[in-house]
């Protein structure tokens, strides 16, 4: 579903992504971990072209995503994205946050879009907040709305960019629970996170990045219990020591 082939990215003199090779199959949950500044968010953002790549091939749903000739808006319909800071539209009610793209991009009627929105709000457990404004919700609730907003487009892939990093600790669980349910239903997911418990429990594969490179990639058991790379051992050691 997603294939990185020798992908490189430079920001001026800064080499952000170095020879990235990674493939994600349909229904797979791939969790990307690594220290801050390791390029994991940048890699994720390349998948829907929020970031451009300098060279290499990146295929998503069978499309060369960095080909200038493709209709990027069409490709993005099938890729939902959830951000660290939720990025809900503050001037729109929860329900209108969710129905905007289905109405404007998919051409659904208002009523159809509202039905779909309510279905997903139900699913993330906050149907009663449909007419609230984002500022009236807690962080955890906002992030669940953001997930519902992504799902309402019925995407084939969902991208999560540190979805729990901006949340108070007691709200992390409610967001992870929604993501776990989604994974169980077979959604293809790429998740950048620091939540190691989530990675171990939900991931099909865990990827470790450092300094723009993928250093290790394995199933969670091997990843956490028998890490090969020195830097991964240090990284995991630091996490466990506090």
């Amino acid at each position, binding site marked *: 579903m997603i294939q990185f082939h020798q992908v490189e990215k430079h920001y001026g003199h800064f080499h952000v992504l170095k020879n990235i090779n990674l493939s994600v199959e349909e229904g797979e949950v791939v969790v990307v971990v690594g220290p801050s500044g390791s390029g994991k968010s940048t890699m994720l953002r390349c998948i*829907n072209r*929020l970031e451009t790549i300098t060279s290499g091939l990146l295929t998503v749903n069978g499309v060369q995503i960095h080909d200038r000739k493709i209709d990027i*808006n*069409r490709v*993005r*319909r099938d*890729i*939902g*994205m959830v*951000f660290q*800071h939720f*990025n*809900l*539209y*503050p*001037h729109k009610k929860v329900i209108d946050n969710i129905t*905007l*793209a289905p109405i*404007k*991009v998919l051409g659904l009627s208002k009523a159809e879009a509202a039905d779909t929105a309510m279905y997903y709000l139900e699913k993330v457990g906050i149907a009663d907040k449909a007419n609230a*404004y984002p*500022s009236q919700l807690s962080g955890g609730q906002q992030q669940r709305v*953001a997930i519902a*907003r*992504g799902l309402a*487009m019925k995407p084939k892939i969902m991208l999560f960019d540190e979805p729990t990093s901006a949340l108070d600790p007691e709200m992390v669980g409610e967001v992870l629970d929604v993501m776990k349910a989604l994974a169980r239903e077979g959604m293809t997911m790429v998740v950048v996170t620091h939540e190691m418990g989530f990675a171990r429990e939900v991931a099909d594969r865990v990827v470790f990045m450092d300094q723009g490179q993928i250093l290790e990639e394995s199933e969670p058991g091997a990843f956490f219990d028998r890490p090969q790379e020195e830097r991964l051992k240090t990284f995991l050691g630091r996490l466990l020591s506090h």
Partner: protein
Amino acid sequence: MDFTVLTENMEPFLRGFLNTIWASLLGLAGSFVLGVIIAVFRITRLRPLVWFGTGYVEFFRNIPLLLVVFLFYLGLPSLGVTLSGFAAGTLGLAVYTSAFIAEAIRAGILAVPAGQTEAARSSGLGYVQTMVHVVLPQAIKLVIPPLSNQFINLVKNSSVLSIVAGFDLMYYGDVVATETFDTINTYLFVAMFYLIITLPLSYGSRVLERKLARHD
């Protein structure tokens, strides 16, 4: 305060007052439209538009308003275009003010967090849809205070029309003052007429600001 100068010269006062309102409305509409266009030029990635927009703003923002009006009133005839004092004055006012409005609007658009655009674009919305449904509605709120300041300035600056025989409030104020020699009362009444326009403007902008800020 002596009201005789007002009651005996009601006609010129009212004529000037209406012309000032008219010039202000035209100036407001013109400067807003021009300002939005120039602001959008400056945030595109098309170099020629950016250069044009930047040149426009820096030129008109950094020369005196009176000079802009003279360019239209006294400069254009040498190119074969002759405008009345009212037209040249109002046009100059609109062009001059639009440079400030363009900057305010541009700042408002840039102040909307990038994450808003990213969320909208990643859901498949196009550039224009993102602007219309996500960015501009948020930018407008941020822009209302500086914009209302500019509009109030525009009303006051419309007094420049008096210098090019634009028949505005200030022009008739001068006429009445010269004829009656009652300068102090005449100009106080002129001030009162300006306040009748500007005070509701600043009050209205505060109300609007509060109303829009309710959900943030």
